[in-house]
């Protein structure tokens, strides 16, 4: 009756970097099982009944927060959403004090987004009996985004091994790209990066990726083109002359997309700046765009992560 399985080694999901390819495959396979739950008349299973999950979002988020909350509810967990605005954080309470107070109410898991890289790790080390899930920490990692991207690619193309993925845009300030590079290279995909030199970290090639200067060169022969959001809020000032110039140089248009392989997938982690990194007609064209599939799959992938971390080892 007890199905033996491989399991995640850590009690937390802090990033993709510490995961093995087997662990990544386990999460993606498990997510397949959960995708079906969202298509049922009763979209709920009792797997996490009685477990309390706190969503600690200290930085703005719509998609990720909503996606985690839906995933938690579909697993029958009790959820509590904590946002920095309107809380004691505005009165100057530190993250540790906030977290200590929440932990005193016995949650089983904490999902955290914070602008400081490493804050999820700090909580994970501080609370040995609580599973901590990183929902984005500064420019460090955003593991569930990379997992849902991989799930979407695997669902459409049937594999990750050998797939050519081009990632375009704001490489420097993007935690999504860092998690994606870790995941895709671990799984044997080929990653090509393109973007303005001012937004390209030095020596990024050491992560096992290929860097090119022009968008056309990056798209040539790609199976997947992943456009990143220009993160105006992280830049202070623009790293390129104007948004229009950015669009002309690195914006994804239908014409540019003809250089990719037939059946190319266009992805975007959202929220999109239409007319900056991606043309509206490309974003909305179902022959290329899997952007809304990514959102749908996000729930299944987060259910898988919550389920895998929420078992016995997460409680006792």
């Amino acid at each position, binding site marked *: 009756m007890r*199905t033996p399985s491989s399991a995640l080694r850590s009690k937390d999901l802090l990033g993709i970097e510490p995961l093995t390819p087997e662990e990544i495959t386990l999460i993606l396979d498990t997510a397949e*099982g959960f*995708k079906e739950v969202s298509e049922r008349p009763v979209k709920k299973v009792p797997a996490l009944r009685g477990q309390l999950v706190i969503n600690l979002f200290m930085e703005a988020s719509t998609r990720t927060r909503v996606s985690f909350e839906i995933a938690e509810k579909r697993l029958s967990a009790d959820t509590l959403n904590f946002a920095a605005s309107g809380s004691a954080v505005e009165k100057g309470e530190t993250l540790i004090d906030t977290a200590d107070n929440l932990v005193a109410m016995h949650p089983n898991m904490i999902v955290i987004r914070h602008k400081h890289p490493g804050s999820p790790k700090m909580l994970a080390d501080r609370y040995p009996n609580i599973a901590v899930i990183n929902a984005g920490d500064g420019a460090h990692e955003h593991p569930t985004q990379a997992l849902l991207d991989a799930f979407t690619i695997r669902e459409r193309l049937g594999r990750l091994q050998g797939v050519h993925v081009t990632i375009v845009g704001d490489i420097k300030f993007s935690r999504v790209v860092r998690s994606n590079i870790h995941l895709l290279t671990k799984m044997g995909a080929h990653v090509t990066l393109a973007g303005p030199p001012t937004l390209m970290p030095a020596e990024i090639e050491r992560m096992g990726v290929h860097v090119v200067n022009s968008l056309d060169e990056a798209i040539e022969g790609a199976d997947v083109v992943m456009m990143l959001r220009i993160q105006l809020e992280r830049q202070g000032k623009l790293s390129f002359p104007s948004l229009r110039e950015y669009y002309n140089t690195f914006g994804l248009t239908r014409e540019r997309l003809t250089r990719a392989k037939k059946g190319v997938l266009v992805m975007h982690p959202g929220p999109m700046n239409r007319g900056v990194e991606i043309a509206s007609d490309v974003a909305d064209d179902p022959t290329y765009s899997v952007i809304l599939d990514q959102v749908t799959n996000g729930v299944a992938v987060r259910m*898988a992560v919550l389920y895998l971390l929420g*078992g016995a080892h997460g409680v006792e």
Partner: protein
Amino acid sequence: MNVKKRLLDGARMNRAIRRMAIEVVEKNRGISDLMIVGIRSRGVPIADRMVREIEQMEGQSVSSGILDITLYRDDLTLVAPQPVVKPSKLSEPIDDKIIVLVDDVLYTGRTVRAALDALIDFGRPRQVMLAVLIDRGHRELPIHADVIGKTVPTDAHEVIKVKLEETDGEDEVLIMEK
């Protein structure tokens, strides 16, 4: 673990499954609204075989499905690591259908309890029946099977091992001792 006795070989297993298929059709006076649903994992091939028998017998196709009960287990918070989750697949809505749940062994009844909960989340069947290849007793819940391949009195320390061509490469049922 030592093999104590071989309960069924391939030929006897096939006869048992054929008889289970006949009983299901008999009890329902035909196959209208019938849906055969296998419980993962070893209930699935047994359900498939019953479907083939019924289709041969009646000359009509029968709807079928697969139920994964992992997320409904009552011991989920006790087992580590977490058991593997796979999708459930039901070929059509179960509302007003007569569902025959199929599993390999009926023991404590906890798997069937979980399967009933899982099934209800997909709709409201008119009736639910249970068909098992082996009923070994020792129920911990008020659950019984409507169609049984073979009833075997066992001791709690014994283990029933059902092997199927589809999952284990051969057909046989063994009774083992720990």
